[in-house]
């Protein structure tokens, strides 16, 4: 067994793990896997659940993409199932109906953001890796951690169940703008939107518990010598993310409660006076403000998008530092930039609302802050790019995904700029350009970052490697298909195609510009191919548990951070002995050192 770490824990490697494991009294299945309060188990619970939701979110958008490419044609294979389960008014003859399209759209957004990416990035990676990297035995509040997962789980169950209640799931977009969210199924007090709101309250509770726990853990449980500026960038990213969740989610919770009142008790928080729906005056008091909902929603909504990206940046930084075999360039400026992003992200939200009727002064404020926030993003990206220079780059799958993240996020981020200027947003607002913008950030951006993380930490969590060949097929297939899916959306946006069009724009483009519709078909086929390229990954993920190459060393990637100084997989309590940190997180290729990496806990 190659000896890599000098700490005692490393010396005993895999065997030590077993010993430690036997020390602990055996727990029953329930308390070990369902009601565990061990951060690693919770992290894995989060991870599996979120991956399943990711797949489900893709299934939803798959059906939508079919409808966009071939409006009015029955969905092959799945159409019949949809009709059976959701009823004729949703999918008559296997053809997706307007309400179903809107419901799937709203739920695709909601599930991807709140049930797939955030839980994966924050719940799974945050939980599994953060305590290990700061040398803590667990999270500060293990039971709260468990409760957080359970709230998430039930939130997910409520969201899924909402497809089956009469009238179907929420159908007013993931943004749930009032009055539509209230009037769409007015009179049916318990409708999809109500379920959505209840689900959101549960998910918000889960995130709040998680955020409190993460921040406390990072402030209180850093091991000896782990000063702030010796924390891996990943931990910093999680720290800032936790603050975003902590302070931005409550206003949405408040808004959710108010909209719940509107839907169930017929108050008028977000309903103005004099609404006439379907030709009749709506029987409510009126006097509310539809824009108030938007402010409260986007006060969360914008920080939320950085919740989606920061953990991915953290993972990418770890993977890049490890695989270039050199320190991150500009670690400090990256840390300050992420704090800056965190701070600024609270005061840019109204750039989603330029066209609700804003004056010059207020929109100038918001576009200025929007431009300001792009600078720290550029700084982080630049630092990562420069980190490549002078490296000795290894191209394993994790590293490939991390490297691909950079230009992909670059495209997504850069296309945020024309949206950020209010004047150019006039043309692009609510077009497919916006869809292209944010999918570039979240799909080939965040998802790639997360996949890099899965390939990177899988050996630590399971004791086995993922298969590299399958991994490379997965990578190249995903990279090509992601671009084929999302790049044409910019063209469609320029052509003026709006979002959320049930017929894929046929009403507008059939006579004038059929090429816009052709693109729909190409995109859909690419999306299907993208799905197919996930199959090797899914196989790899499960099969490697049993047949993957075994890890023979606690530190298989020759890494420097503390997560690799534990036995594999880490036992309850993580470290056999409290680790002590002597240096910064990325001491790779230190001149004069015997090896090309010097772990944080290696005594000087």
């Amino acid at each position: 067994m190659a000896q890599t770490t000098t700490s005692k824990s490393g010396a005993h490697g895999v065997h030590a793990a077993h010993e430690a494991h036997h020390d602990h009294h055996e727990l029953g299945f329930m308390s070990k896997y369902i009601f565990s309060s061990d951060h690693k188990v919770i992290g894995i619970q989060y991870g599996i659940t979120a991956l399943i939701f990711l797949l489900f979110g893709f299934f939803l958008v798959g059906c939508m993409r079919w409808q966009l490419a071939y409006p009015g044609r029955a969905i092959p294979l799945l159409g019949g199932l949809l009709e059976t389960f959701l009823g004729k008014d949703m999918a008559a003859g296997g053809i997706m109906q307007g309400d179903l399209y809107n419901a799937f759209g709203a739920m695709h957004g909601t599930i991807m953001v709140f049930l797939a990416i955030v839980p994966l990035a924050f719940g799974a990676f945050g939980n599994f890796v953060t305590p290990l990297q700061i040398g803590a035995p667990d999270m500060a509040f293990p039971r709260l951690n468990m409760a957080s997962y359970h709230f998430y789980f039930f939130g997910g169950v409520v969201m899924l169940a909402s497809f089956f209640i009469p009238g179907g799931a929420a159908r007013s977009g993931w943004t749930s703008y009032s009055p539509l969210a209230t009037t769409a199924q007015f009179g049916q007090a318990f409708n999809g939107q109500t379920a959505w709101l209840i689900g959101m309250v549960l998910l918000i509770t889960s995130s709040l518990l998680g955020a409190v726990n993460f921040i406390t853990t990072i402030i209180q449980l850093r091991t000896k010598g782990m000063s702030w500026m010796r924390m891996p960038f990943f931990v910093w990213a999680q720290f800032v993310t936790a603050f975003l969740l902590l302070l931005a989610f409550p206003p949405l919770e408040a808004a959710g409660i108010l909209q719940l009142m509107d839907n169930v008790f017929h108050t008028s928080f977000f309903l103005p006076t004099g609404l006439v729906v379907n030709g009749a005056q709506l029987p409510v008091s009126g006097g509310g403000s539809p824009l108030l909902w938007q402010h409260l929603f986007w006060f969360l909504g914008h920080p939320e998008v950085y919740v989606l990206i920061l953990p991915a940046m953290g993972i990418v930084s770890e993977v890049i530092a490890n695989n270039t075999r050199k320190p991150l360039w500009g670690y400090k400026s990256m840390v300050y930039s992420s704090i800056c992003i965190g701070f600024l992200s609270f005061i840019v939200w109204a750039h989603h609302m330029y066209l609700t009727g804003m004056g010059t002064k207020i929109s100038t404020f918001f576009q200025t802050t929007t431009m300001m926030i792009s600078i720290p993003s550029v700084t982080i990206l630049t630092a990562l790019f420069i980190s490549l220079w002078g490296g000795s780059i290894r191209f394993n799958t994790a590293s490939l995904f991390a490297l691909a993240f950079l230009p992909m996020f670059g495209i997504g981020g850069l296309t945020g700029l024309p949206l950020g200027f209010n004047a150019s947003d006039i043309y692009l607002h609510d077009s497919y350009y916006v869809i292209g913008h944010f999918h570039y950030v979240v799909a080939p951006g965040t998802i790639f970052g997360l996949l890099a993380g899965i390939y990177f930490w899988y050996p630590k969590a399971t004791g086995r490697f993922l298969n590299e060949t399958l991994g490379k097929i997965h990578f190249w297939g995903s990279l090509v298909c992601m671009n084929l899916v999302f790049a044409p959306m910019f063209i469609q946006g320029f052509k003026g195609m709006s979002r959320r069009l049930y017929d894929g724009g046929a009403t507008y483009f059939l006579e004038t510009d059929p090429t816009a519709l052709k693109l729909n078909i190409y995109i859909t086929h690419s999306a299907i191919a993208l799905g197919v390229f996930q199959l090797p990954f899914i196989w790899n993920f499960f099969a490697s548990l049993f047949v993957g190459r075994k890890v023979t060393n606690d530190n298989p990637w020759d890494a420097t951070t503390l997560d690799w100084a534990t036995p594999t997989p880490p036992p309850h309590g993580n470290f056999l002995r409290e680790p002590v940190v002597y240096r910064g997180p990325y001491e790779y290729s230190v001149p004069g050192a015997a090896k090309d990496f010097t772990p944080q806990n290696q005594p000087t």
Partner: protein
Amino acid sequence: MMTKLLQIFGMPDVASAHGAGLDDLLGYVHLLMLLLFVGWLAYFFVAIAKFRQSANGKADYLGVKGHMSSYLEIGVALVEGVLLIGFAIPLWARAVDRLPTAAENPVEIQVMAMQFSWNAHFAGPDGKWGLQDTRFASSGNPFGVDPNNAEGKDDVATLSNEEFLLPVNRPVIAKVSSMDVIHCFKLLEMRVTQDCVPGMSIPVHFTPTKLGKYSITCAQLCGNGHSKMRGYFRVVAKDEFDKWYAEKSKAGAGTSFE
């Protein structure tokens, strides 16, 4: 000139006075993006080729020295600042904030969005809109005009996506609103977008400069029929508009607003 560039991507021709300015901004931003993207991408490929493990077995602890990156960041910030101060803010002030004055003789219309159609309302020859109140509003009378009010008798209204006309080269003020949920009044060729928020009437303005038939897109999810909510208007010469207006208003005397 920027419009030409953007047409490569399929953007429709601009047909309003302020539109060219917006297109310029859009073009410059995309140039900046292109520049950054191409520059970084070139660097990126060089870096991963040059520093792959098989080519460079030993990493350099320090890597890049010097301040290139700071200059770059400052550069990006500066360009963004220029675009912001030089283009975006003044454009917005002109295109959105400042309404045409009476001296510019604007055509004023009210636009009322409803699920799922566009309705337009002109004041008629007397230049006065009939008295309106949401209490009178219904699907047949989206503007809530008091049916007994004399000033409303000559009003011109085009309901349910019926095409309306606008005169070329004369400023238009459209006061957009909605009677049910939020819609979005988007005129692609005019480079105009404005959410229609129920309970509010928000003016947007533009000066059509090209004759032709254009459509009104609804760019905000408004329910089941959102994708079909397409309205039309035609920009015509002054004479044709006047003729239409006069005829419509005569016919409008028959519009009962009930």
